[in-house]
């Protein structure tokens, strides 16, 4: 007799548990307002990334095409996997002495792991994280970028 009552109680608890699950999905079926999908790429105009988003490394230039990079090479030493190559040049400054300036700050986006050590350890705050995230290209060599723009120069106040 107890097995018969167990049979029926199993049946009824089973059906009520199934109905509880169906209520959850049924509730979402009738609330299309809960849809969380973002219609990318149609919403590119209004898409705002977080300010600290780690998209890629950039070297901010101000309106006079000047940056803060002195070519010290600390970022290159701190990068764990060699995504940064610094090529420096010796140029004569106005007093006639030869000093080191940055020629090319090569950044391999293809190898970067976005650990942030270069941004953190740069003594002149020359590097920052950009917010661009659409990096897909057809040619791998386009992922090797030179961060200092052509014709740019060092901002003089950085040398303290």
């Amino acid at each position, binding site marked *: 007799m107890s097995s018969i009552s167990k049979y029926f109680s199993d049946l009824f*608890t*089973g059906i009520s*548990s*199934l109905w*509880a*699950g169906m*209520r*959850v*999905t049924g509730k979402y079926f009738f609330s299309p307002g809960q849809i*969380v999908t973002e219609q990318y790429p149609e919403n590119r105009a209004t898409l705002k990334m*977080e300010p*600290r*988003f*780690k998209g890629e490394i950039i070297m901010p230039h101000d309106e006079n095409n000047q940056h803060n990079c002195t070519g010290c090479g600390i970022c290159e030493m*701190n990068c*764990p996997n060699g995504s940064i190559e610094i090529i420096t040049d010796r140029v004569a400054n106005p007093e006639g002495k030869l000093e080191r300036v940055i020629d090319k700050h090569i950044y391999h986006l293809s190898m970067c*792991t*976005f*650990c*942030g*050590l270069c941004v*953190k350890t740069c003594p002149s705050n020359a590097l920052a*994280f950009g917010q661009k995230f659409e990096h897909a290209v057809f040619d791998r060599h386009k992922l090797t970028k030179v961060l200092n723009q052509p014709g740019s120069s060092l901002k003089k106040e950085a040398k303290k």
Partner: protein
Amino acid sequence: MSEEIIKDVIVREDEDYIVNLGPQHPSTHGVLRFEVCLKGETIKYVIPHIGYIHRGIEKMCESITYPQIIHLTDRMDYLSAHMNNEAVCLCVEEALQVEVPERVKYIRTILDELNRLASHQLWWAAFGMDLGALTSFFYGLRDREHILDIFEESFGSRLLHSFNTPGGLMHDVHPNFQNRIKEFIKYFRKKLPEYDQLLTGNVIFQARAKGIGYMNRETAIAYGITGPTGRGSNFACDVRKIAPYSAYDKVEFKEILLDGGDTFARYQVRMAEMWESLKIIEQLVDNIPEGDFTAKMKPIIKLPVGEYFKRVETARGELAVYIVSDGNKTPYRIKFRSPNFSNLFVMNDLVTGHKIADLIAISGSLDLVIPDIDR
């Protein structure tokens, strides 16, 4: 005692009907190969093959400095990335006997628990999907997006943060951090009962999970199973209680121990842990002390000669870091004791005698992340 429990090498016979749950399979959550020997529908033995994603992390760490190791540890168990980072940082800080500010400890603990929540949400999503309840995948991930947005606001990346550094944090959290967390807690407390309605109480799910993959306490201890998997077999292995670190000695939380030992018990442990994580975050989020976000460290970190050990509780079990240093700025040898490696190899004991469909359920309940096994 372990020798009686852990069987010897499995012998393959000629007439065995072997089927490969190959490295590419939607349910193995990573690249893992299960060599399954079937007899009809029942499984005779299972041999896991690992190594498909071995990247040599421990060897790579021998040639880079301590702050540079952090970004590699992210990529071991990527669902508990913060705990992995914290393990190495704590080990180095203990070796140098550096006292981190209170603010750092509180923030690290809050991020630990958020990460644990996110990991369990993803586990629930994938577990439901493996068993056939495809909607649970989307509900779990939808709620996880809120946590990932909190991470993105403070660190800039959603999954692999590399936010810790020996001595503290890389930079301070966003000013909006506390408010967003409080909103999230309110939101998630309403959604978590829906998870129970959808899966936990469901009679089909219980029939698929109860009595499947029974593991008793002696087996768990013999294999070194930690984390929610071990706690489902009544093995009290929570490192947060045994050897508290960061701010864990300042919060009150329960260690969830169940003695069912089967898939359903492991499931319930993780669901209860989600509630406990919410409680821990609530206790801490309003009381973060002001202060510095890092201690003063030398620019080049060199550990004194010796051996250092530290363990933390990731979402899957006990991760331990063992550093052997010979005084240089790079470690001589670093060894990670990964929880998933130990958890995987109990698979043969659990699965023998069950059916193929149960293999999927059991491996889902063990909650393996394969890159942690292979490192």
